[in-house]
């Protein structure tokens, strides 16, 4: 049972079928003049329309990229390199995805100033903190929509209102929310919004950036002028076609999936918290994605929990330092103010619409047994 859909998802059958002809039959370069090229161009246009529909944008506001990370980098560096003369201050949160966070750290090395808004124990920023942070120098606000580790959802609409009032560009990373909850660029009041295909049963290596009409960016990848000069490079036609289809499917099934996922999520959450002693939910219990749960269990370490669960057929993830290549604990969990030891005992599970078929009781029992086994071995467990 795959419970790590926030990390990546399986390409759906319909998506793969839609992509297939573009590898060997319709393989033309969309920039070319003859029919083969024009067919590829048409396929791009259709995909662009589908992505636009799914987020209530206009097709000419959609720019294809190689994924969520590139979209975030393009949004942030694109604005900043364009507006550096206007000011050098950026506002963000303490829990952004590394694609945003490390980009901002790079900009700090170029003498930009960055304010990291705190998220408190529920993992959500306060609008008053934002208002206080804004200065005349502020050229960009970048706040993610849904957090990839916690599942918590930020008040994007309200942030957008503040940004609009002050005339500051506002970017949001909607990689985790898109396809899970409504993402409507008009309602959200954003200028820039990042999407990734492989989180919604589309192929890896594709994403998009929504750029509100009139927002001017410096390209991240300069070159042949594809994507109206904002993103050069021969277009990944099959990938984009697949992403378009995935967007269409995600939009069509949004409400249905939301209901299903929320109900399984709540069942798992209640059962885990009731069955396992010293188990807690990380992040706000209400303002969260329908498909994501993040627990912490006292006195155990996450990597070993993940390995035990994998042996029983459940794939999940953790914010423990020991599970990462850098041996650095999750900065997101740390930002909640958790005891460092507790950060190591976290478990993230993220559901897909297919997950409904799985046996929640068996899963909860497996987690309970595994946690108990690790606690037996743990010098920190004294009960």
């Amino acid at each position: 049972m795959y419970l790590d859909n926030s990390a990546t998802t399986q390409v759906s059958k319909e998506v793969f079928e839609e992509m297939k002809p573009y590898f060997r039959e319709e393989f033309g370069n969309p920039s070319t003049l003859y029919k083969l090229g024009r067919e590829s161009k048409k396929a791009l246009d259709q995909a662009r329309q589908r992505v636009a529909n799914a987020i209530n944008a206009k097709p000419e506001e959609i720019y294809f990229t190689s994924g969520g990370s590139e979209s975030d980098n393009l949004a942030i560096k694109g604005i900043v390199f364009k507006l550096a003369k206007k000011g050098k201050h950026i506002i963000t949160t303490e829990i952004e995805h590394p694609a945003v966070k490390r980009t901002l750290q790079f900009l700090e090395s170029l003498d930009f100033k960055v304010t990291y808004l705190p998220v408190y124990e529920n993992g959500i920023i306060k609008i008053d903190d934002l208002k206080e942070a804004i200065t005349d120098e502020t050229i960009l606000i970048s706040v993610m929509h849904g957090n990839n580790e916690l599942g918590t959802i930020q008040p994007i609409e309200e942030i957008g209102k503040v940004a609009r009032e002050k005339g500051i560009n506002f970017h949001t990373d909607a990689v985790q929310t898109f396809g899970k909850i409504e993402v409507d660029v008009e309602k959200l009041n954003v200028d820039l919004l990042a999407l990734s295909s492989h989180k919604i049963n589309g192929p890896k290596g594709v994403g998009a950036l929504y750029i509100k009409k009139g927002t001017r960016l410096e390209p991240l990848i300069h070159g042949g002028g594809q994507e109206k000069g904002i993103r050069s490079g021969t277009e990944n036609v099959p990938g984009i076609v697949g992403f378009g289809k995935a967007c269409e499917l995600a939009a069509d099934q949004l409400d249905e999936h939301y209901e299903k996922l929320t109900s399984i999520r709540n069942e798992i959450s209640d059962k885990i918290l009731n069955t396992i002693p010293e188990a807690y939910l990380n992040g706000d219990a209400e303002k969260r994605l329908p498909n994501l749960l993040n627990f912490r269990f006292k006195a155990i370490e996450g990597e070993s929990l993940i390995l035990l669960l994998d042996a029983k057929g459940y794939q999940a993830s953790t914010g423990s330092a020991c599970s990462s290549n850098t041996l650095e604990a999750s900065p997101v969990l740390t930002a909640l103010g958790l005891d460092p030891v507790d950060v190591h005992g976290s478990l993230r599970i993220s559901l897909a619409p297919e997950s409904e078929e799985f046996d929640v009781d068996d899963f909860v029992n497996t987690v309970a047994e595994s946690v108990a086994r690790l606690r037996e071995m743990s010098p920190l467990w004294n009960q």
Partner: protein
Amino acid sequence: MDYSEKVMDHFANPRNSRKMEDANGVGTVGNPTCGDLMTIYIKVEDNIIKDISFQTFGCGAAIATSSMITEIAVGKTLEEALKISRNDVAEELDGLPPVKMHCSNLAADGLQAAIENYYENNQ
């Protein structure tokens, strides 16, 4: 993490994982803030490690190396046991991923701390 079969075996079926009430040497190393804490218990008779056990809070490699070092050390004299290096532990496990080598350090250090504690208790 690409663990060898032996690592996975020692992780999934840890040997000698228990608290030892009548240990005469106990060593604790690591730092739970970094995700690891290891306690090694030994019972020494006639300069020989007669019994050894561990308790570990840590990753798969930390648990597997704890388990492995108890197997290596049991029956050895204290002098022999002090010579067990982190590489010995890693080798016995058919290797560890490079980022996890420090976990085998932990096991060797834990054993050493337990032996030192035994010496202190029995001066």
